[in-house]
């Protein structure tokens, strides 16, 4: 009975081969699309990159200028939204996974899922109504709040999923040593899930750093370096949007370069966070 295959065997092997090639083909398609986008942006953007471009403020057409204020503005907005959105989102995730039980928790989970699907422009209009109108002006703060609102549900759900991956036996082990519930959660469960939670946070940050719509009515944009969180602030995405819809070739080129910068920024943050939360044990 060595190496004799009947027909059923042959069919099974053929189907298996076809399916394997199909998955490989789809993977190849997805990855190459990504690579084409990345290399196209690099190709179009790299020409306008210069030290001046990275540090200067925008100038009228023909005078060069740069996106220094937009880079700073984007970082400030990411910082504000992370400071608000990450603690809230992680707390909600911890509640959903570790604390809450029953129908109320199911309700919270449903609402969080619904929030994930809200179009970001709606979030922008909402923050415009509750923050910008009462304050009577656009501000970095309201931009940060809008982005934080987008972050919270993403961070909450990934945190919940990551915490649920921590084996139940680990919780019981800590409880059996006389640890109160809150110490089990803080000292054992969250550290065990930390790399996953950080990845979730990363995804959320990457997602909001590409958001333009919620910033249009909140952070608005600015031609200067920010001096206060209570003022309108520039951002890479809004800058890209404004330059891309302009009729000037120079600004189009700058929009490509700004896109390249934005992508590098996200990649950089990603690498730093990966490094900081790499698995120690």
């Amino acid at each position, binding site marked *: 009975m060595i190496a004799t295959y009947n027909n059923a065997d042959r069919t099974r092997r053929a189907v298996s081969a076809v399916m394997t090639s199909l998955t490989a083909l789809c993977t190849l398609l997805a990855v190459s699309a990504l690579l084409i986008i990345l290399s196209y942006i690099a190709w179009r953007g790299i020409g306008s990159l210069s030290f001046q471009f990275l540090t200067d403020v925008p100038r009228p057409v023909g005078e060069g200028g740069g996106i220094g204020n937009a880079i700073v503005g984007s970082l400030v907005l990411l910082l504000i939204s992370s400071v608000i959105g990450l603690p809230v989102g992680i707390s909600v995730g911890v509640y959903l996974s570790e604390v809450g*039980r029953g129908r109320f928790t199911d309700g919270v989970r449903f609402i969080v899922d619904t929030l994930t699907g809200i179009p970001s422009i709606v979030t922008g209009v909402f923050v415009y109504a509750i923050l910008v109108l009462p304050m009577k002006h656009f501000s970095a703060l309201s931009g940060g709040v809008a982005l934080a609102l987008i972050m919270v549900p993403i961070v909450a759900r990934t945190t919940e999923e990551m915490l649920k991956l921590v*084996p139940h*036996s*680990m*919780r*019981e*082990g*800590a*409880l*059996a*040593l*006389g*640890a*109160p519930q809150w*110490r089990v959660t803080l*000292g*054992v469960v969250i*550290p*065990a899930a930390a790399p996953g939670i950080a990845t979730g946070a990363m995804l959320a940050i990457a997602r909001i750093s590409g958001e333009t719509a919620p910033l249009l009515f909140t952070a608005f944009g600015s031609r200067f370096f920010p001096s206060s969180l209570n003022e309108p602030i520039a951002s890479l995405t809004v800058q890209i949007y404004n330059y891309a819809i302009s009729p000037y070739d120079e600004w189009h080129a700058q929009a490509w370069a700004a896109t390249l910068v934005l992508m590098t920024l996200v990649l950089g943050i990603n690498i730093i966070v990966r490094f900081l939360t790499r698995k*120690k*044990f």
Partner: protein
Amino acid sequence: MPVQTVVPKIEVRPSSTAQAVTGKAKVSVRDLDFFYGRVQALHNISLDIPERMVMAFIGPSGCGKSTFLRTLNRMNDVIPATRVGGQVLIDDRDIYAPGTDVVELRRKVGMVFQKSNPFPKSIFDNVAYGLRINRVTKNNSELTGRVEEALKDAALWNEVKDRLKTSALSLSGGQQQRLCIARALAIRPEVLLMDEPASALDPIATSKIEELIFDLKAHYTIVIVTHNMQQAARVSDRTAFFLLGKLIEVNSTEKMFTAPSEKLTEDYITGRFG
């Protein structure tokens, strides 16, 4: 599969035959019922566990022996929709009485689980965990001393003393289980519950754990759940046999494996079912 009719030869450690059943009851269970939702898992169980002895729980899968073990340190509290009736007295205090501090109870009644469950921390931090959260030690040198002592008690010290700072997950399965025992011993519990502590281990690691149990009973009251009847015979002084959520028989281990008083026990031990 032919029905096994050969009576397996089970050797009882001679020393356990010498132990009389006179020890004071450390744990005293009275009319205990336990429910998972509407399903009753334990029926009217009454049982005394004498101090500084090893008591083994045997019985087929699903007979309630693990559930019963977990009622002794209220680990079942974390499972939703469970309910307990009756009393569990430890040192004459009902642990299910209102106002019982579960955290304090679990410091007194340690537990080792079937699957080793070290925390993703260093070896040292694993053993120090219970000491730290309970603020047992006053300073660092005392903490280090207690960790060393616990690791020595769990017969793991020599294997890990040079790498206390490395991850607990780098240890082998048997070492991880002994680490979990060390972790439980570090806070010096009075009762140690072991839920099939050797079921996932090879024979060498198993014999190490069994020797450990034999040494530990000088200081601790030990309750061990096991599927392995030879193991029960080797390590325990008294044995309780569970079937379908009921306690069928509790007796000295020697008597249990040589002349059980219940027909059901005999049938189980001789391999006629289960």
